[in-house]
């Protein structure tokens, strides 16, 4: 009996997959290990509340804006202020820019090479450069789309990576009129790219049925924020949980009460905790977050074009929840379109040039929770401070953590379907990675750890001996 271990690439961070085989050579269990630990929650202690957005933004170079905005919201709760209307809109605009850049990165740079060049194609070319060789126009447009998202972040925060612009109480500066005009001029091209990518995905979807049915296709709960009337939400709102038939399991939950509903299990073989829906127990309380969950949880997107595509998305599961994690890609493309539609609305809003963007207050609560939908899913920052605003304790629950159980089940499913014999083949290796990549995980964020993500796969026998191991950096 054996274990297959596979290192994962083209995701953020370090990971290892172990496939456990039974005496018959079939996959009996699979584990997705996150092999880094960092300790942000520890070294934030003793720092001032106002520094927290800037500090936690450093958790990640891909989604710094998400941590920044979520941390600022936890700060709002501790100051007990409502941020000025303009500041709320500006924060939302930054998050939409973050969605565009992160989702474009996930689809065009990280996942499109598998989808469009083929799962079994030459690994040396199965990357964004290979894609540029094969479909130069698509690759270039994808890179430009990501750049557009980053330009929004830069226009607001002064820099593309690690802006320190959102603060407890609001933001530091409005959107300059000159930047607004520049972004408005670039918007139509970005929208065309998003629409083209959606059309391309929908055209090819029938060819990917085998992957769609084996990449984490199982019933589960889905959790996300929703706005009033269950409209798609990315920055505020209340938590909603639906089951595989899109029946609400819980609604109208104040995110600050998350600990009443979500438990966190710990396993000795991963640094990443395993959150679960308490009412359903562990591990049955498996739930998924992120683009797929947001689309399953909401009743509408709130913008015309995205609502039209949501109708087509719903047909995948006849109106029930789409339960295949492969469809995260589809959901991500729909969210890019929805984000661009909303960005268009904000660019025409004079509030965004308002100088009234920062509420000033002292320490009025000793505990505060910030919640936010990062591109990868629901993000929670929970701080406890002393009377002077010095952090005594911090708890961060990140999107990749929520999806931990689901990712484990996904690699088991892919292993069972694609493992033949006792060798880790290139096709198996890449599909296991692809299964993980569908979640667009950020392992750096999940353990608040740094680096790109080399993933290893190890094949282990019944007694734990290593039969085969394969990985790449």
């Amino acid at each position, binding site marked *: 009996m054996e274990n297959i271990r596979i290192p994962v690439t083209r995701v953020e961070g370090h990971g290892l997959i172990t496939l456990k085989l039974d005496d018959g050579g079939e996959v009996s269990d699979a584990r997705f290990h996150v092999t880094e630990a960092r300790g942000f929650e520890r070294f934030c202690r*003793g*720092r*001032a509340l*106002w*520094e927290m*957005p*800037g*500090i936690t933004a*450093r958790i990640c170079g891909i989604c710094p804006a998400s941590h920044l905005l979520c941390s600022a919201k936890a700060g709002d709760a501790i100051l007990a202020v409502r941020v000025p209307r303009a500041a709320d809109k500006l924060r939302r605009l930054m998050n939409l820019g973050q969605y565009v850049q992160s989702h474009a990165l996930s689809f065009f740079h990280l996942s499109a090479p598998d989808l469009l060049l083929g799962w079994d194609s030459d690994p040396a070319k199965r990357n964004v450069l290979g894609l540029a060789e094969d479909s130069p126009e698509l690759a270039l447009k994808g890179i430009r789309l990501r750049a557009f998202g980053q330009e929004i972040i830069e226009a607001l925060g002064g820099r593309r990576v*690690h802006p*320190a612009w959102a*603060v407890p109480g609001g933001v*530091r500066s409005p959107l300059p009129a000159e930047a607004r005009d520049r972004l408005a001029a670039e918007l139509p091209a970005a929208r065309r790219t998003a629409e083209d990518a959606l059309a391309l995905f929908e055209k090819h979807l029938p060819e990917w049925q085998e992957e769609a049915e084996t990449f984490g296709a199982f019933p589960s709960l889905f959790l996300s924020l929703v706005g009033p009337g269950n409209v798609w939400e990315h920055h505020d709102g209340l938590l909603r949980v639906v089951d595989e038939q899109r029946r609400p399991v819980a609604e109208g939950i104040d995110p600050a009460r998350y600990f009443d509903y979500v438990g966190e299990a710990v396993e000795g073989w991963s640094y990443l905790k395993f959150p679960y829906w308490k009412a359903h127990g562990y591990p049955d309380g498996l739930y998924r977050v992120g683009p797929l969950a947001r689309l399953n949880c909401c009743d509408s997107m709130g913008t015309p074009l995205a609502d039209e595509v949501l109708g087509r998305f719903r047909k995948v599961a006849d109106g029930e929840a789409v339960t295949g994690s492969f469809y995260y890609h589809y959901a991500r493309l729909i969210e890019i379109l929805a984000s661009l539609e909303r960005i268009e609305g904000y660019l025409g809003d004079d509030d965004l040039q308002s100088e009234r963007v920062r509420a*000033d207050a*002292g320490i009025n609560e000793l505990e505060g929770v910030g919640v936010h939908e990062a591109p990868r899913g629901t993000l929670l920052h929970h701080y406890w401070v002393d009377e*002077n*605003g*010095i952090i005594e304790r911090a708890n961060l629950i990140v999107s990749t953590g929520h999806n931990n159980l689901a990712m484990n089940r996904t690699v088991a499913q892919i292993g069972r379907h694609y493992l033949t014999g006792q060798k880790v083949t290139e096709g198996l290796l890449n599909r296991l990675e692809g299964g993980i990549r569908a979640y667009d995980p950020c392992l750096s964020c999940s353990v608040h750890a740094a680096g790109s993500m080399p993933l290893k796969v190890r094949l282990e026998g019944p007694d734990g001996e290593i039969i085969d191991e394969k990985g790449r950096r």
Partner: protein
Amino acid sequence: MITLEIAGRQVQALPGQTILEAAEAAGIHIPTLCNLKGLTPRGACRLCLVEVTSWRGKVVPSCATVVEEGMTVVAHSARLRELRRTILELLFAERNHICSVCVSNGNCELQDLACELGMDHVRVPYRFPALGMDASHARYVVDHNRCVLCGRCVRACSEIEGAMTWGFAHRGVDTVVATDAGGPWVDSSTCTECGKCVEACPTGALLDKGTSVAEQVKDPEVVSRVTERRPRA
């Protein structure tokens, strides 16, 4: 007038002036950190070290050494560069200076010195002392992690404001700046809340409460502006 040579140039100075003052008047740059115009020199940081050739190459702090007739001063040499850089590395290693998340990032004299002296890495092990912040004051915060013990706050407080709130507590490597006889800043009975200590501080050790990363901009020249406007006794 006194005539001396600094960095190979003939320089005129008034009796009682320091080498640093004479050099600056002549447009010769010498790196400094604890020195601030308007405050008495302290010689605490040693970054302004120069070699006095006429004193057999003795190394002295230029901020605290008075000029002499016929003196020959070397302001820049390989030896001085190495000394200054090592001093700077020791300053960085002594406390927890994390520029990326500091309120003074981009507006910090310590950071500017690291750039000026080409300090691309630190060759001594960091001490990582467990130091805290005092955010008890309504308007200002002291973060001991970023303090270089230059004493500019202490001097601004006693020499300019006359409050004598700031002083040094403990000894050696454990030295910290402290208000009154120690204890939370908010409890100080002498502090006038004038904020000159914050403006005088060269790093992010003293800051305005509520500032976030890279947001703290200081105006240390406020000290000399105040003293120049003040009537002479």
